């Protein structure tokens, strides 16, 4: 499924948060939205998801520009946001429709994908941060979203869990080929995961630069090639030189 943004802007109480953003994502592409905090990355993602409909411009999901939440879109938030009164399994089946048996079978399959097939009966309070985020990933994927939106999904996790879950995301992406938009402020994460990195800058945030990463996956996190990309990104964010 393709995703296109045309001249998207968003005002908050008369103050511009993002200004005139346009880009196109092909089916199955992983797009990274990168930028320092306050440049409107999350605002943009919420507009794409339909949670926020007060933006200007058009967002077309497969050509459909309705400003509504579409059931082909999945969202993984920064926090797991599990329902504390439901078990892990019930959390995963939450968004599914249809008969109960089918839902459970499907949920179990996805729990297995994230390595939690044994934990279906647990409550969220019994999970570690990494496990909870895995459940959130399973919950978002179980509805087979064709567009998957991720808002700094791994930023609250420790470095090792983070790498694990990044690989998990790639595995799942390989299997289901969703179009992914990933908001992040982690440059390593962006270069490791994305086909294309869109750099936003300024306040209001504007599209500053697009970097295409053609390296085949799996990529080597420590490779020189990724380090070059990182340098380029740092350069364009003006983070290498201290000004003012």
């Amino acid at each position, binding site marked *: 499924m393709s995703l296109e943004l045309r001249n998207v802007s968003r005002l908050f109480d008369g103050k511009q948060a993002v200004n005139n953003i346009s880009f196109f994502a092909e089916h199955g592409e992983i797009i990274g939205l990168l930028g320092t905090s306050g440049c409107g990355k999350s605002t943009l993602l919420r507009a794409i*998801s339909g*949670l926020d409909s007060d933006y200007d411009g058009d967002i077309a999901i497969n050509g459909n520009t309705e400003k509504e*939440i579409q*059931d082909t*879109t*999945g*969202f993984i*938030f920064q*926090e797991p*946001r599990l*329902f*504390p*009164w*439901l078990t892990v399994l019930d959390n995963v089946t*939450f*968004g599914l429709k249809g008969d109960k048996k089918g839902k*459970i079978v499907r949920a179990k399959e996805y729990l297995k994908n994230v390595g939690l097939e044994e934990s279906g009966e647990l*409550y*969220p*309070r019994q999970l570690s941060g990494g496990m909870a985020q895995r459940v959130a990933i399973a919950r978002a994927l179980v*509805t087979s979203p064709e567009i998957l939106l991720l808002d700094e999904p791994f930023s609250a996790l420790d470095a090792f869990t983070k790498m694990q879950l990044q690989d998990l995301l790639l595995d799942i992406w390989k299997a289901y080929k969703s179009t992914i938009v990933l908001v992040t402020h982690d440059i390593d994460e962006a270069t490791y995961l994305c086909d294309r990195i869109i750099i936003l800058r300024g306040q209001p945030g504007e599209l500053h630069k697009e970097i295409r990463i053609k390296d085949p996956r799996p990529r080597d996190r420590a490779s020189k090639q990724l380090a070059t990309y990182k340098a380029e990104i740092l350069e364009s964010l003006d983070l290498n030189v201290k000004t003012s």
Partner: protein
Amino acid sequence: MKHKGELASPVAVTNRINKKKGERTKRDFRGGEAVALGSIIPITLVIVWEIFSRIGVFPAYQLPAPSAIVETIREMAQDGSLWNHIGITTFRVLVGFVLGTIAAVILGSFVGFYKKAEQLFDPMIQAFRSIPSLAWVPLFILWMGIGEPSKITMIAVGVFFPVYLNIVSGITGVDRKLIEVGKMYGLNTFQLIKRVILPAALPSFLVGLRSGLGLGWMFVVAAELMGASKGLGYLLVLGQNTLSPETIIASIILFAIIGKLSDWILKLVEKRALSWQDSFVPR
């Protein structure tokens, strides 16, 4: 999935039952220890009290011995009047509690869900809340006479406020982030209320129920003191008028027991309904 037990072999089932039993006895034992520790001081006090009453340190017309009080309760139980008094008092509290809760649920949900309803009703309800509820008693008696309606209304008013306040704060306090998750899955308003808002507001609602019930017991005393021919509160008045402190203390003790019992029932309900909460991890 729930029928796993049926498929498992009998041996496995017995094993599991045994294991469960083992856990239960262990927990009971620990619970027993807590009860034993908690009862040391009350039992000692009762014994000291009994001794002091027997040797005449406490005059019997002011503070009768515990044995005399137990005797009073036993006598009342024997002639049946005890069950009558307990029954009518419990009935009043129950009916008042149910009526007050229903009113609170209806108004509280409205005020919690609709901003307009909040602006419309909440200031008035808050103003009424600042009236000490006992101040209503003369008015209710004037309006509804001295019979059951005035007493039950009294109790319902007492129950209403804590339940109402907790429902409103429960509903307005639901995490916006969880509501967003529901929205992402395309839930409509009704589904959101049923699947996200109500479960999220449940803990607060149950807290309201428990404090409402506590107030219900408080208000039944007030209502029965004002004028009743039956009930535990009537026993208090009777004891005062007939100069028999043992009746008064017996009534107080009975209030304590039933009040505790009803709270314990609600606590069990709460524990079952909120087993998912962090604070209910068994220690």
